[in-house]
């Protein structure tokens, strides 16, 4: 039975992961997401699951790698500096074609930065982050309810495509409380069967080798082509986005996550004074919804990107627009959350230029 509760973003994601059938959590405390490992440390023993506080994010991501080798649902969560530390392991997980689920509750950077909400890890999330030609499926929820739904989706996509997937949230989404409807728990017997490739013991069969490694460049290139085929299937099937009041829009704003929520207020207040703005909210940051933005660019001739960064998704938006529209940008960064008023002011300034 699903149930309706008031929950913090981090805790709602943790509970959703358990209901998705995840019984293995490895992590390391870091603000602003430490409530997630804390929640797991309480809940996992109640469901015969594993919670392990690793000695570092480096160790945690490799525990994820090891558990993923056995074909079990496994996850970790962290925030920006910790996600940087995990990049090597994520590259190995991608190369070994393993399902593993990550949460990055993004905070201000670079370096130690601060602990306030940010979206300045977009490049790291969508363009690789670690070494090699690989991608991670990136889901960007904008409400706690959507974060819960993305948690289930992240596990399903990781299993289906045997690739790492992640939820990119910001500190705001992680920390705020909202009413959520939690899904029913998945029966562990109903989870995908990975026994055809996973490391579970070579009983009555040839041994399984799970690696990202081949010293022969021609063989490694073949492996890379296989990864690219998977990424192509993901591009064809898994692009997700929301269009908000785009039907009659004369101006387009593109924003994701918490920023998209703020931009919905901007859209509504602009429309009250007769200015028809619409919003495109990418839900998958990789694969990115280029096509819908391209269409909106041709239709409206104005595609403004708003982010809590100095302009990272902006690069993908401009790739999507391909010169068919003006592409202004407004952002606050380093943990500063933009207000609807300042976004609207920036919009008006750019609108005159159009």
């Amino acid at each position: 039975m699903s149930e309706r509760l008031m929950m913090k973003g981090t805790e709602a994601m943790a509970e959703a992961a358990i209901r998705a059938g995840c019984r293995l959590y490895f992590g390391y405390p870091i603000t602003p997401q430490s409530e997630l490992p804390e929640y797991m440390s309480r809940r996992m023993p109640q469901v015969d699951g594993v919670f392990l506080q690793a000695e570092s994010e480096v160790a945690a991501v490799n525990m994820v790698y090891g558990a993923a080798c056995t074909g079990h649902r496994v996850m970790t969560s962290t925030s920006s500096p910790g996600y940087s530390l995990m990049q090597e392991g994520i590259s190995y997980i991608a190369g070994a074609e393993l399902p593993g689920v990550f949460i990055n509750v993004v905070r201000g950077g670079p370096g130690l930065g601060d602990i306030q909400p940010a979206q300045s890890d977009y490049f790291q999330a969508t363009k690789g982050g670690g070494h090699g030609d690989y991608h991670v499926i990136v889901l960007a929820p904008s409400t706690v309810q959507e974060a819960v739904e993305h948690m289930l989706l992240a596990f399903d996509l990781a299993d289906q495509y045997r690739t790492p997937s992640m939820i990119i949230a910001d500190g705001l989404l992680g920390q705020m409380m909202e009413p959520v409807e939690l899904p029913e728990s998945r029966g562990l017997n109903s989870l995908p069967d990975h026994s055809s490739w996973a490391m579970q013991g070579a009983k009555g069969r040839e041994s399984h080798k799970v690696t990202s490694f081949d010293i022969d460049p021609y063989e490694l290139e073949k492996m890379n082509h296989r990864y690219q085929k998977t990424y192509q299937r993901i591009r064809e099937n898994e692009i997700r986005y929301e269009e908000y009041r785009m039907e009659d829009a004369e101006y387009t704003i593109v924003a994701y996550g918490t920023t998209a929520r703020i931009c919905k207020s901007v859209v509504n207040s602009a429309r009250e004074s007769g200015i028809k703005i619409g919003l495109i909210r990418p839900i998958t940051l990789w694969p990115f919804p280029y096509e819908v933005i391209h269409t909106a660019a041709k239709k409206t001739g104005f595609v403004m990107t708003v982010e809590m960064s100095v302009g990272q998704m902006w690069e993908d938006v401009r790739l999507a627009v391909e010169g068919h529209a003006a592409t202004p940008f407004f952002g606050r960064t380093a943990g500063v959350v933009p207000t609807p008023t300042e976004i609207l002011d920036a919009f008006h300034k750019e609108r005159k230029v159009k």
Partner: protein
Amino acid sequence: MMQATPIMKRPESLAQKEFTYCPGCLHGVAHRLLAEILDELKIREKTLMVAPVGCSVFGYQFFNVDGTVAPHGRATAVATGMKRALPDNIVVTYQGDGDLAAIGTAETVHTANRGENITTIFINNAIYGMTGGQMAPTTLLGMKTTTSPYGRSSKTEGFPIHVCEVLQSLPGVAYLERVCLFTPKDVMNAKKAMKKAFQAQIAGLGYSLVEIISTCPTNWGLSAIESVEWAKKEMIREFPLKKFVDRVGDRS
């Protein structure tokens, strides 16, 4: 008619594959011992092996067991994830000195400290072999390598690290012994120690590690025989053979 009984055969756990190791390298002996033990303890079918980055990066291919390669230094973290997912399986890491005692020091210490119920075979030959003979954390004082061309100096490079001595104070450790492979007797002792390490894991007693003092004729610039003679004298003086922890006792 008399039935011929083989007295020596390839262990079932050892794959039909040529080793990639240099002539005179002792990895081959250590591999054979490991395979014999997996056969004798009848655990081949549930063993999961984690190879390191280093000369034994191909190690997972030489055994008829499920295997992977960890990122450099992270073998025991990877093994931890496997063991927590499948506690009834046997998990073994096979690591060199650079992997285990330099880049992987944190993972080594904390895996041991958690008493993670896995087994580590640790090959210490005081040098980075795969990358071409650079200084290792266990390189002896005065020893010349490609990154300590004037000989390792304690003033600038510190001292060779003694892994067993560091780990022996941790209560999570169930079995800890340093052995070598220089004579047939040494090989028999090494096998006994390795077997006990796996028995510790089978009994669920905690972390087990066997350090094997080995050689590197290629990067030491010595013949196979010279390298063994040198190791007997110099390596054993620095790294004395000893059983540090044995919570298995005679229960085997």
